[in-house]
């Protein structure tokens, strides 16, 4: 099976959003390569990134310790648009 297919199946097996590190560990793929591969499914609309838009406007975002550790998380983009609850504005930066 292709790695791309394995990635998609990893997401099909769970309802939880998964971080890059989680998937990378499970499939033993180098995380940076995985991130690039993930873009394939994101473009196809099969997976979407769970956004942390709350921090986008924060002045500290480039040095914010919590934000720097925030794993990029992805989830299966199903037809039903039960999007995860939007984070409150700038939760990470006080």
């Amino acid at each position, binding site marked *: 099976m292709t790695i791309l297919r394995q990635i998609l199946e990893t997401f099909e097996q769970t309802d939880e959003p998964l971080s890059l590190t989680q998937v990378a560990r499970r499939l033993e793929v*180098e995380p940076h390569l995985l991130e*690039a591969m993930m873009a394939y499914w994101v473009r196809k609309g099969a997976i979407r990134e769970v956004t942390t838009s709350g921090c986008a406007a924060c002045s500290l975002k480039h*040095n914010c310790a*919590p934000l*720097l550790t925030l794993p990029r998380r992805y989830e299966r983009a199903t037809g039903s648009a039960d999007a995860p609850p939007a984070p409150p504005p700038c939760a990470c930066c*006080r």
Partner: protein
Amino acid sequence: MVTICLAGNPNAGKSTIFNALTGARQHVGNWPGKTVEKKEGRLWLDGQEIAIVDLPGAYSLSAFSAEETITRDFLLEAQPDAVVAVVDAANLERNLYLVLQLLEMRVPLIIALNMSDVAENRHIHIDRERLAEWLGGLPVIAVIGSREIGLDALKEAMVQVTRRRVITAPVYADLGPAVEREIAALHGLIEADAGLKDYPARWLAIKLLEDEGDLGARISPPLAAAAAADARRRIADETGEDADTLIADARYRFLGRVVGQVVTRAGAGGPTFSDRLDRVLAHRRWGVLVFLALMWIIFQFTANVSAPLLDWVDGIIAGPVTRWAAALLDAVGLGGSWVESLVVDGIIAGVGGVLVFVPVLFSLYVALAVLEDSGYMARAALVMDRFMQRLGLHGKSFLPMLVGFGCNVPGIYATRTLENPDDRKITAFLTTFMSCGARLPVYVIFGSAFFGAASGGLVFGLYALGVGVAVLTSLLLTRVVFRSKTAAPFVIELPPYRLPNPKTVGLYVWSNTSRFIHNAGTVILAASVVIWLLLAVPVGTGQFAGVAPGDSLFGATSRIIAPVLSPAGFGQWEAASSLMAGFVAKEVVISSMSQIYTGAAEEDEPEQPSTLGEDLAGIVTGLGEAVVLTGQEIVNIVPRTLNIIPGLNVPEANFLGRADDASSDTALESALRQAFTPLAAVAFNVFILLYVPCMATVAAMRQEFGARWMLAQVAYTLVVAWLAAVLVYQGGLLLGLG
């Protein structure tokens, strides 16, 4: 005219390089029939004028988006003399995907490795010669577009490529036997077709197998497109996978191999300034010491350095502001009525009592912002995380807790950075033991009432106790309640150190301080009025607004609870009632104490009549003095810190040459000294630190983890706070500290 275009992923820096190359000589329009911006410019190079086209950002050359279609069609139709692939060096894997497709198209290519500075900062080292080899001998130029570094080399490469002086070998990713077989068949078909001679054959074959709808429909004769449909079916039957997924997968595998050989992450190159600093600041043991020392300085800063300004603000609120309000009410005939009591004893004492602490919080937030914006906070998180892991705690939890020092509410939301739901719950639970900014005023007022210059030590001790209780709680939760699994490894990207940006620090301080002030104008104001009402309503006999606090509704209710607190040394109803009020927000502890304690004390302060001019002059000279004293306190951090060492007695600075007296005492401070023994005061502060966090935090807990976890939190904090306060008080008595 020679045409060169820039292609690359969105945000790789194409526009930056385009602007640097063309300067003002550019023209911005739209691509025909599209709303996508088209930028063209001119550049004199090697004695001739060259047209430069900035293509829209694309991750791939499919018909996925308008940008990608435009890029693909431009390359096919305009046949530029060279293509500069602008590649983000810090994200090579993702960016090379496009490069691989450009290679398939056989366009004359130059790689501009942009963002080389970012890559270097992240310790990503790229072996350019090796990369060039892998890519068939293309020029690979390191560039920092935003600083116009590397552009001369890039221009030189452009000259070489447009003059066809660069010889490159074709580079293809092996797409696997099933796909390659079909490509070979289609290849023959395409080459035999005169109508398709403008297309690169292998590239078109791949595109048709990927089922690029619009491309298949466009080519004529449609022979090859029809053959491709059959080929796709055969591939799917044979491999059980779509052709386009197989193709993408093979490309990524190829890239994985390239990057694996070309890129080294971390540690490569000489140590940077940040690296050298990190040898101490991020060191296993030294790092912890530095962190503790910094915290010590911060609490000296917040507790002592802000004291003169605090006294100044307090003087204004207790003096002129109160007098002006009373005079105003007198003038409209409300002097001596319950309205005056509400305004003066309720609102001014309550809200003013909290506003007094603006300088304290201001200095706390300045300190936190400086630590954060300098990049230090990430190190603190790393160091403390290692420290806590040694205690058997899971990784990363310290971060939300660090955030909790500012305010617990965002600390709880910051647990979202944890992946495991159990870890999140545990961490949120612990975060409320981190002493937030709103608790600080209580420590400061008790500290200066009972411990004078040593109050910084009290504050530090309380913060440390909070962390200690969190550690113990965490052990309890991970070992007994959740029986947690292995700790997740801690991944944090350490940003390079930098001088804090005054604007960022200012914004941070402003947004937090203004929230505190806003709180004072809303929550605290409302709570003050409610507390005043509860204090004004008599129980049994008495008259509205004329009753002694102890006989009011508030006093009577608090008296019921007070005995529970006696073992901790503060069984008076006044203490119990401020603790109840503190549930709304911890600042309210101060405002309710101001109302309760000073309501009675005010009577014996003789009113000195003064004019508005005198008041204003007093405020100004007071500020001048406060500034001088602030300087003195900053200087005194040094002797006070050294004096911790036993036997050392470094004298402290005394700028104004005043004797240490109680003249700067606020009314509340002297009232507190009568109501509490020093030991009871410490126990009371321990209780404040540990008991139920404010309403907003409890609400955040509920929102994130549900009512059950919230209730558990409330119950647990109450029990722990009571136990700890009793332990401190009774233990102190046993040691003879009473």
